[in-house]
């Protein structure tokens, strides 16, 4: 079947999609966006996290046909041209990337967290990232990266972390 949807704002068509195929497979194998990673195909690892109509979901658990006429956002859509999103830049600067397999999912999930909570507590960060597994970093650098991204975004907005906005 054919599936028509938008990815990162761009109208996209995927052909010869098998009816039981996942959105993750369509993104990686049919529309040339391999940023979202396939590590478990059962919702456990979060490395395939993408936005579906603005909410982060596991792309491996969305049937391709379900995204017909809907909007998908992937890690490839976070950067603005050559300028990384503050979340991406913070992951680089904090050394939160080792093998990098978990990174795309963590970036999308963190991006969503910081859109909703401007000054998340550590507990909120851990909760938001509880569905994203990383086998390399031990998570401390990831925590650092999220705190750094939150602080930089607050700076850019000119707000101090008073904890009242989140």
């Amino acid at each position: 079947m054919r599936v028509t949807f938008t990815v990162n704002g761009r109208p996209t068509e995927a052909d010869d999609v098998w009816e039981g195929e996942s959105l993750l497979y369509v993104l990686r194998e049919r529309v040339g966006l391999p940023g979202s990673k396939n590590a478990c195909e059962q919702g456990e690892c979060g490395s395939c996290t993408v936005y579906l109509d603005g909410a982060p979901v596991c792309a491996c658990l969305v049937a391709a046909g379900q995204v017909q006429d809907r909007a998908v956002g992937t890690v490839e859509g976070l950067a603005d041209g050559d300028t990384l999103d503050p979340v991406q830049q913070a992951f680089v600067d904090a050394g939160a990337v080792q093998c990098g397999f978990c990174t795309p999912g963590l970036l999308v999930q963190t991006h969503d967290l910081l859109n909703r909570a401007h000054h998340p507590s550590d507990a909120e960060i851990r909760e938001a990232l509880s569905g994203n597994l990383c086998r390399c970093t031990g998570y401390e650098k990831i925590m650092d990266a999220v705190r750094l991204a939150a602080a930089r975004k607050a700076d850019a907005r000119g707000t101090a972390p008073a904890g009242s906005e989140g």
Partner: protein
Amino acid sequence: MEFLRPATWEEALAVKAQHPSAVPIAGGTDVMVELNFDRRRPDALVDLNRIRELHEWRIEDDDTVRLGASVPYARIIEALHDRLPGLSLGARTVGSPQIRNRGSVGGNLGGASPAGDAHPPLLASGATVEAASVRGTRLIPIDDFYLGVKRNALEPDELIRAVHIPSATGPQQFAKIGTRNAMVIAVCSFAVALHPHTRDVRTGIGSAAPTPRRAREAEEFIRAELDESGLWTSGGELPRAAARRFGELVAGAAAPIDDVRGSAAYRRHALAVLARRTLLWTWNDHRATGRAAA
């Protein structure tokens, strides 16, 4: 395989009547795992995502929440935690944020896994499942919904349209045992709801029997205990011995098995502890807030 995309509820019923073996897919968090791992190869999928009303909820005149089958857990937690505290607590323990953005109570009921986290709170609240087919609509009391391991009372041509859940009139609790705080299938779980207006206490046990079930003997015991000692009126402290006995009776109502997640003996022990604690929490909560408000 066919991918069927009804745009309206009526169309969905017609499609299901024509293809009774077609598998409905809502959040997909159960269905897609089975497809990805080739555990299931249905002739057809029926996508329910396009049917708007399944994602909506409303409050009926009698204060019952009519929860559309596909409303994701994240929405329940956000919008209904006051009215449905037990279900919201259960919803908070489901998977991860990504899973809660897609997974739904309709899907939990459709799968009818004994470990599903929506089931114990639905049992404790006294919910009703609205099932429909081209033949008409049935309101199935939750007590009659679970028939066996992953088997429910739906006919092949039926779909779940909504779940009717009375708004809480007293404190509710849900507790779940697992190896970590997120992403765990319950080793066992327990929900309790106080219903002060009827002086009832209702329960739900998860992951400790072939189906989710109530602990009726425990409910009757604590109902009699509260009545006889006049505690609903006095608002007195619940005797610890009564809470302990309640816990034992809950454990006695379970029929757990040994499996990779835990032994039957552990499940029974844990249930007794969860039941005793959650009963005390709800009772103390009722004493502190419920009576003041009443």
